[in-house]
């Protein structure tokens, strides 16, 4: 681990050790110098003392006494290794054995390698009233000073080591207190905050840079907390809004569905209204026949003209009355069935039958609108799952649409055929007119609600959108082809089978 604590400590220890070593080297050098000086002083005073002590004896010339004096002095001073007194270059008295390696006159310094056996030579003149009597050569030991020196060095070493240790401990403590502990606290805080606890504050009350860092960090966390709270609040509001909106949309959708359903029904009722006049006409014709034939027969019976020959005629009249009343029944039943509000229920139906019924209820309109009807319906069944009622309205709407395209009359051809489309069995119904046609730019808008090329009050423009709605409910498709001036053809593709799950399409108002 490259811990900052260890690195810092290393740098400090290195620096302090360097300084300590330098200090100690200086200390040793200084001790050497001091001891050198002291030993020289000592040597000088020792030699001077011996010279002074020996001056009188040398004047007397009594060399025996001189030897005795040297012995006494040498015994008194442990440090004296040897003494020699020369007079006119000849040794006259000695004490101890002279070390021949120590050359006379050389200045020997303490601490030098050549200073063998810890001994130093010194030479002093013996004078009396400024007359030179002789020379004293003294060799003295430095053992005492060496002991002193090493004791000094030891003190220095121990002091240095203790000093180093104390400094280390103090720095360790300081680094720990000032850097490592706050850094660890900040690190721990970052981790906790990073894990999402924005309530956490780094417990560092200091005025230094790390304290400022911790404060900045705490401020940042507080800001984060505020922002997070705001975002959460916003989220919650948003969620509520979305929920509310969704609910409203659902409600609107339901309402729209209901409205659409009602629209389909009311448009059917409008169709019933349109058909009403025609139906009355259609009913009055057979009624006129029935009443008329009944009248004729009654008259003949009253006149007693009921003869064998008349019976054939009567039979014919009654057959006509039967046929006509059946026709009335059929018209009324068709209309009733059509006007009934029915659920979007699917049943097995024959589309050819639907076309046939449509032509029955539209008979009056066909005549009134001066339309030449043609049915291109092969003699086969066009069975499919569907709602006969709604599909009948599809045909009525398309025929009404065709009439609007040719107000002065024209031809309408209704065609049916069984065909397979994309692997699905389908019945394709077409309603073609010979009217004015629809401009290309209007073809796309054709199935939109309230789109109408006519500006009249009678045409709300709902017919085709409702037609499309009904076809969509049957999972079918409606398309239109048109050429201006030639005519328009609507094609409806209805699947024979409805998907298994038929969407529930029966609002409660039905």
């Amino acid at each position, binding site marked *: 681990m490259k811990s900052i604590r260890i690195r810092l400590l290393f740098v400090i220890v290195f620096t302090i050790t360097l300084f300590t070593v330098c200090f100690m080297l200086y200390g040793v050098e200084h001790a050497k110098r001091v001891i050198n000086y002291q030993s020289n002083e000592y040597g000088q005073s020792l030699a001077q003392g011996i010279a002074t002590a020996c001056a009188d004896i040398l004047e007397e010339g009594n060399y025996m006494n001189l030897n005795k004096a040297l012995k006494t002095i040498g015994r008194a001073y442990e440090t004296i290794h040897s003494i020699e007194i020369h007079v006119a270059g000849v040794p006259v008295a000695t004490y101890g054995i002279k070390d021949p390696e120590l050359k006379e006159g050389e200045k020997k310094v303490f601490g030098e390698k050549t200073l063998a056996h810890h001994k130093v030579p010194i030479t002093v003149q013996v004078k009396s009233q400024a007359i030179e009597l002789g020379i004293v050569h003294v060799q003295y030991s430095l053992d005492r000073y060496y002991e002193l020196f090493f004791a000094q060095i030891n003190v220095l070493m121990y002091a240095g080591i203790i000093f180093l240790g104390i400094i280390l401990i103090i720095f360790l403590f300081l680094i720990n207190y000032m850097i490592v502990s706050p850094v660890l606290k900040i690190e721990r805080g970052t981790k906790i905050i990073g894990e999402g606890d924005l309530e956490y504050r780094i417990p560092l009350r200091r005025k230094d840079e790390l304290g400022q860092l911790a404060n900045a960090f705490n401020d940042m966390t507080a800001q984060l907390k505020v922002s997070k709270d705001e975002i959460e609040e916003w989220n919650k509001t948003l969620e509520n809004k979305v929920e509310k909106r969704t609910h409203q949309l659902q409600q609107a959708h339901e309402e729209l569905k209901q409205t659409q359903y009602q629209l389909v029904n009311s448009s059917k009722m409008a169709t019933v209204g349109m058909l009403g006049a025609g139906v*009355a006409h259609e009913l009055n*014709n057979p009624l006129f*026949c029935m*009443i008329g034939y009944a009248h*004729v027969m009654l008259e003949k019976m009253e006149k007693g003209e009921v003869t064998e020959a008349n019976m054939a005629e009567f039979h014919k009249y009654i057959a*006509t009355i039967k046929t006509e009343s059946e026709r009335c029944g059929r018209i009324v039943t068709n209309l009733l069935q059509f006007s009934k509000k029915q659920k979007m229920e699917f049943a097995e139906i024959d589309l050819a039958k639907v076309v046939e019924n449509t032509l029955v209820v539209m008979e009056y309109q066909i*005549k009134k609108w001066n339309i030449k009807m043609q049915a291109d319906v092969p003699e086969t069944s066009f069975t499919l799952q569907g709602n006969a009622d709604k599909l009948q309205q599809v045909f009525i709407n398309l025929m009404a649409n065709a009439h609007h395209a040719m107000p002065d009359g024209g031809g309408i051809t209704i065609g049916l055929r069984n065909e397979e489309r994309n692997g699905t069995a389908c019945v394709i119904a077409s309603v073609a007119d010979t009217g004015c046609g629809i401009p290309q730019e209007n073809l796309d808008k054709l199935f939109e609600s309230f789109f109408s090329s006519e500006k009249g009050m009678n045409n709300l423009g709902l017919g085709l959108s409702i037609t499309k709605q009904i076809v969509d409910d049957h999972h079918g498709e409606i398309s239109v082809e048109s050429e201006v001036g030639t005519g328009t053809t609507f094609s409806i593709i209805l699947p024979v089978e409805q998907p298994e799950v038929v969407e529930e399409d029966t609002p409660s108002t039905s």
Partner: protein
Amino acid sequence: MSRKILVVDDEESIRDLLSIILEGEGFEVITACDGNEGLTKALQEVPDLCILDLMMPNVAGGVLAGGIRDNEKTCNVPIIFLTGVFSDDEADMIKNRFAGERLLAKPIDKDALIKTINEALA
């Protein structure tokens, strides 16, 4: 000599019924099933009276009546219009274009029909 009446209606049962009734009253009856045949027969036979259904495919009663009026031979032949439903529109149309002619709404009572015919022929 019996009076000649032209009956034009697209419905066979009505043509038959009117024939029976009118022949029972001693009229000679000619029938036609649509406007074109009606005009042809009217110009051929020049009847004493025309009974026209207003609502017929191709050539409606009103158009046929116009044709009858426009021809010199038949311009004075009285016309009785029959209608499935009596409406103000049709009544106005007849009042404007064929003033003086009569309009009857189905179903027609036999006596009322004979009475109207006699009035028209008078």
